[in-house]
C-alpha cells in the first residue's frame, strides 16, 4: 500500500511539473477552424480556377501565420507573414513558400484585397481557404504566432545563431510591443554577418522592411532564415523544457493540430537535413508592383501556379 502511495505521489509530482504545459497545449492546439467554401463570385479569375492539389502519400502541409497583434490591433489582426510549409516524411524534404502579405487576391470572405486581411476578416479558416483557393494547395493545418510569441519562444530557447546577409537599419520601426503609445517608432540597427540574436533582435530582423529594396520579399527571406535557425536550436531541447516553452508561448500560439499530430511532426522536423529544405519567395517575375498608392502586389498566376505545382505536387 505504501509503495503504491509513493508511486502515485511521484506521478503527481510529474503531473504538477507538466501541468502548465498540458494546460497550454490544450488551450493552443485543436483550435476549431471553419474553412469556408470557395467564394462563388464569378469575377474571380485567378488560382481559384485551379483544382486543389492532392498530397504525395504522407505529406503534410502547414500554413504558418505571423501576426501584428500589438495594441494597435484590438480588432482583427493582419498576418504580416504567411508561409506554406510542406513536410514530406518519405523523401525527408521540406518546401517553404512565403506569400507576400500585400498580394492582391480574391479573399474567401468575399471581394478582392491584400491577402494579409483574410485572417483579420475571417480568422484562420478564411486565411486557409484564401490560400487554398488561390494557390491550389491543400492546407492540412495552421499555426498562428503573435509578435510577443516569437520573441518569447526565441528567448526561451536561449536565442538563435544566424548569418544576417546585410545590415538592417530602420528609422521607423514600430515600437509597439509593451506598454506605452503603440504608434511610436524605434531606430533599429541589426549588424551584418554571423551572430547570436535574442528574441527582440530576431523580431527586429524579420519584421523590418523599410530599408530593403525588396521590401516584403526581402523580409520573407529573412523570416525563413530565422525559422531554420529556430528549427536547428529546437533540436537541442528536451521534454523537460516543455513547461518553460509553454509558459513562453502562453496565448501567443494557436494551431488546429492535435497534440498527437504535433508529437508525430516534431521528430520529423528535427530529422530533416537543412540541404533538403527548399526556400521559395515570390519575387518578380512571379509578382509585380501595382504602381499605385495602396502598394499592393499583383500576382502573375501564369508563373506562380506552375511553380506551385512543381514544388507542391
Amino acid at each position, binding site marked *: *500500500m*505504501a509503495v503504491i*502511495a*509513493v*508511486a*502515485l*505521489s*511521484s*506521478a*503527481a*509530482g*510529474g503531473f*504538477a*511539473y*507538466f501541468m502548465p504545459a498540458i494546460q497550454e497545449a490544450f488551450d493552443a492546439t485543436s483550435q476549431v477552424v471553419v474553412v469556408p467554401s470557395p467564394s462563388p463570385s464569378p469575377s474571380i479569375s485567378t488560382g481559384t480556377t485551379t483544382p486543389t492539389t492532392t498530397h504525395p502519400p504522407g505529406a503534410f502541409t502547414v500554413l504558418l501565420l505571423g501576426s501584428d497583434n500589438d495594441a494597435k490591433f484590438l480588432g482583427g489582426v493582419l498576418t504580416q507573414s504567411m508561409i506554406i510549409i510542406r513536410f514530406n516524411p518519405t523523401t525527408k524534404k521540406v518546401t517553404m513558400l512565403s506569400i507576400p502579405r500585400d498580394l492582391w487576391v480574391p479573399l474567401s470572405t468575399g471581394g478582392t484585397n491584400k491577402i494579409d486581411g483574410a485572417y483579420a476578416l475571417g480568422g484562420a479558416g478564411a486565411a486557409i481557404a484564401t490560400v487554398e483557393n488561390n494557390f491550389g494547395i491543400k492546407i492540412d493545418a495552421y499555426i498562428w504566432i503573435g509578435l510577443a510569441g516569437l520573441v518569447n519562444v526565441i*528567448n*526561451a*530557447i*536561449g*536565442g*538563435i*545563431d*544566424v*548569418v544576417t*546577409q*546585410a*545590415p*538592417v*537599419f*530602420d*528609422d*521607423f520601426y514600430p515600437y509597439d510591443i509593451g506598454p506605452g503609445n503603440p504608434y511610436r*517608432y*524605434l*531606430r533599429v*540597427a541589426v*549588424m*551584418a*554577418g*554571423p*551572430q*547570436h540574436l535574442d528574441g527582440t533582435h530576431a523580431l527586429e530582423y524579420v519584421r523590418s522592411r*523599410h*530599408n*530593403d*529594396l*525588396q521590401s516584403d520579399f*526581402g523580409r520573407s527571406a529573412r523570416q525563413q*532564415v530565422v525559422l*531554420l*535557425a529556430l528549427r*536547428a*536550436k529546437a533540436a*537541442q*531541447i*528536451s521534454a*523537460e*523544457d516543455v513547461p*518553460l516553452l509553454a509558459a513562453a508561448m502562453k496565448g501567443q500560439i494557436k494551431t488546429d493540430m492535435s497534440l498527437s499530430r504535433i508529437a508525430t511532426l516534431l521528430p520529423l522536423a528535427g530529422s530533416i537535413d*537543412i540541404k533538403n529544405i527548399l526556400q521559395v519567395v515570390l519575387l518578380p517575375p512571379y509578382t509585380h508592383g501595382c504602381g499605385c498608392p495602396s502598394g499592393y502586389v499583383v500576382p502573375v498566376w501564369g508563373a506562380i501556379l506552375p511553380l506551385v505545382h512543381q514544388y507542391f505536387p
Partner: protein
Amino acid sequence: MISRALVAAGVAVLMVFSSVGTYMYLGSRQSKVAAPAQLPTSGTPSPSALNLPGTLFLTQAGAIYSYSAGRFHQLTALGVGWTQLAPYPGGRLLAVKRTLLYSDVYILDRFGKVVRQLTHNTAAARNYDPSARHWSFYPRLSYNQKSIFMSYDKPKFGFDVPMSIWSMPVGGNISQGRLWSISIDYTGGDIQPLSLRTGLIYTKYSYGPDCSGLESQLWFTSAPEQAYGVRVCYPPPGAHGRPLTKAGEGCAQPALSPDGGTMAMICTYRTQVSYLNLASWNGKTLGARRTILRSQLVAQPTWAPDGTGIAYLAPAVQGAGFQLWWLPKAAYTPPTPSPSPVAPTPTPGVTPGPSPSPSPTPSSPPVVIKPVQITSNLGLDATSPIVWLP
C-alpha cells in the same frame, strides 16, 4: 507495535518527498539551451590560452573585457552598450557606445576609461523624430593616424538609411568629415572601413551587377567622393572604386596581416554558414582565396600582432553563443612543396562555392592542426571586431 497513525504519518512524509523530488528531478533535467552566457571573468580558460601573446579586447553584453595571460578582466560596466573596438595609439582603444536611438565613437584608455567623445549623434531632448539621430559604427584609425574612418548614416533619405564611409580629422568632429563612399539604396550601405597606405578597403552591400540579390563585397577606393549621392542596385563601371571580391562570394570583415601581405576575410557564399578565407594582398588586388575554416559560423578574424596565428569568434555548439578561438599559423601555412609540385591555377574569384585550398604535393602526410577553443559558455559579441595589442 507501531501505531497506525505513525505509519500513516511516515507514508505521508514519503509521499511529500517523492512528489516534490520528482518535480525537482524533472526540473534539473532541463537542457541548458536557455542558460545565460557566463561572464568572461567567471570562466576558466583553456590552458592553451596562456600561449597567446599580448592583450586581446573583446565585448560581451555591452561590456568591454581585456584578455591576457589566460585571464579576462572586465573594463566597463555591463549593459552600457560598448561594442566595435579598434586600436588607437598609446595602447588606447576606439569604441562605439550604442544606445536605443543612436551611437557615438569614443577613445578609451586601456582600462576602459573614457578619454574623449568623438561624435555627438543624439538630437535635442525634445526632438522626437527618430531620424534626427545618427549611427556611427566600425571606427578605424587611418594608416597615417591623422583621421578616423567610420560608417555613418549620412546622407539618409526617409525610410532609406544607408551607411556610408566617412573620415573625420583626429581632434576634429564629424561635421569636418569627408565622404569616402557612395552607398547603394536600400542595402544597409557601406561598413567596416580599413585604411591602408594605398587606399581604403571596406565592405559594400549591393544587389549585384544584375540587381538580383543583396550581398556583400570587399571594395577598394583610393580617393574620397566629391559629392553626396546614392546609387541603385550597383555602382556603375569605373565609378566609386572597384570590387576586390566577386558578388557570389559574399565577403566581409577584412583584416590585414601584420606584414601587410595577407588579407583575412569572412565569406558566406549565399549560405547560412561562413568561411574564413585568406588571400594575398599586393596593395591593389587580392590573390587566390584559400579557405581555412569552412561551414561554421566563424566571425571577426584578428591577426596576432606577432603573426603567430589568427583569433576568431565562433560557437562551440550551434546556437549557444560565440566563443574565442585560436588558429596557430601552422594550421594555415601551406606545407613545404615537394621538388616538383603541381602549380595551382590562380583563381581571382570563387563561384559559386569556396575554392579548395591550393594543393602542392606534400613530401609527407600533412599534420592537421586544429583550432584551439579558448573559452566556453560565453556569449561574445560576434558583430564587434576584436582588438589585439602587443
